[in-house]
C-alpha cells in the first residue's frame, strides 16, 4: 500500500513537472516572440523614420532653393525696374530736349540734315518735304538754297510738332514717304539709345549680374 502511494505521488509530480516545463516553454516562446515583435517594429519604424528624414532633407533643400530663388528673382526684377525707370527718365529728358531744338543755335543745320537724309532716302528730285517743329512757326525755316534739290517743294506741317518735330519727305506721286521726325528717329534708334543711355549711366555692369551668379551657384 505504501509503495502504491509513493508511485502515485511520483506520477503526480511527473505530471505536474511536465506541465510546468510545458508552461515554461510556452512563456519562453511567447517572450521570444514578444522580443521579435518589438525588434521588428522598431526596425521597421526606424526604416520609415530614415525615409522621412531623407525626404525631409530633400524637401528642406527644395524649400531653401525655392525661397532664395524667388526672392532673387524678385530682387533682379526690382533692379531691372529701377534701371528701366532711370533710362526712361533720361529718354523723357531727351524728348524734352529734342522738342526745344528749334530754339537752339544750330536749328537750321539740323533741319537741313534731316531734309537731306529724307530726300536721299526716297531718291526723288521732285520731293515734297513737310516740315514742322514745336515752338516754331512756318517763317522760321530759311533753308539755304543748296540744302534741297531744285525740284523739291517745302510745306509747313504743324502736326509734325506732335512727333517732337522733324521732316517727312514724299515723292511727287506720294507713293514713297520717309518719316524723319524725331519720334521716328527715336524709334529707329531705340536699342542703340537704350544701350547708350544704360552704359553711360551704369557703365558696363549688366543688370542683376550678381544675382545671376548666386542663382547659378544655388
Amino acid at each position: 500500500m505504501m509503495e502504491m502511494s509513493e508511485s502515485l505521488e511520483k506520477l503526480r509530480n511527473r505530471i505536474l513537472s511536465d506541465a510546468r516545463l510545458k508552461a515554461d516553454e510556452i512563456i519562453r516562446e511567447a517572450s521570444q516572440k514578444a522580443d521579435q515583435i518589438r525588434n521588428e517594429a522598431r526596425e521597421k519604424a526606424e526604416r520609415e523614420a530614415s525615409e522621412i528624414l531623407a525626404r525631409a532633407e530633400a524637401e528642406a533643400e527644395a524649400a531653401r532653393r525655392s525661397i532664395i530663388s524667388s526672392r532673387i528673382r524678385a530682387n533682379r526684377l526690382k533692379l531691372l525696374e529701377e534701371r528701366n525707370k532711370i533710362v526712361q527718365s533720361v529718354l523723357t529728358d531727351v524728348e524734352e530736349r529734342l522738342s526745344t531744338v528749334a530754339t537752339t543755335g544750330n536749328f537750321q543745320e539740323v533741319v537741313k540734315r534731316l531734309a537731306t537724309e529724307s530726300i536721299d532716302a526716297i531718291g526723288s528730285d521732285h520731293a515734297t518735304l513737310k516740315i514742322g517743329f514745336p515752338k516754331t512757326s512756318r517763317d522760321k525755316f530759311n533753308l539755304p538754297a543748296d540744302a534741297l534739290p531744285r525740284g523739291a517743294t517745302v510745306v509747313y506741317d504743324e502736326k509734325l510738332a506732335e512727333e517732337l518735330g522733324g521732316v517727312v519727305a514724299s515723292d511727287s506721286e506720294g507713293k514713297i514717304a520717309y518719316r524723319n521726325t524725331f519720334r521716328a528717329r527715336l524709334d529707329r534708334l531705340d536699342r542703340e539709345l537704350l544701350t547708350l543711355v544704360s552704359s553711360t549711366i551704369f557703365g558696363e555692369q549688366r543688370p542683376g549680374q550678381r544675382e545671376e551668379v548666386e542663382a547659378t551657384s544655388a
Partner: protein
Amino acid sequence: MSGIDAVKKIVETEEEARRIVEDARQRAQQIISQASKEAEGVREQVLADARRRREEMLTRAREEAEKEAMESERETEKLIENYHRAFDERKNDAVRKAVELVLQK
C-alpha cells in the same frame, strides 16, 4: 488508498496540469499582446520623433533661406542706391549723348 482514490488523485493532478498549461498560454497571450502594444508605442514614438526632426529641418532651412534672401535684399538696396547716385552724376551726360545720337545718326 483505494484504486478509485488513486484514479481520482490522478484525474485531479491532470486537471491541475491542464490549468498550469492553460495559465501559461493565457500569460503568453498577454505577453504577446503587451509586446504588440509596446511595439506600436515604439513605432509611434520613433515616427513622431522623425516627424518632429523633419519639421525642425524645414524650419531651419526656411530660416537660413530667409537670412540669405535678406542679405540679397540688402545688396539689392545698395545697388539701387548706386543706380540713383550714378543717375544723379551722369544723367546730363547721358541726355547729351542721346540727343547727339538722334540728331546726327
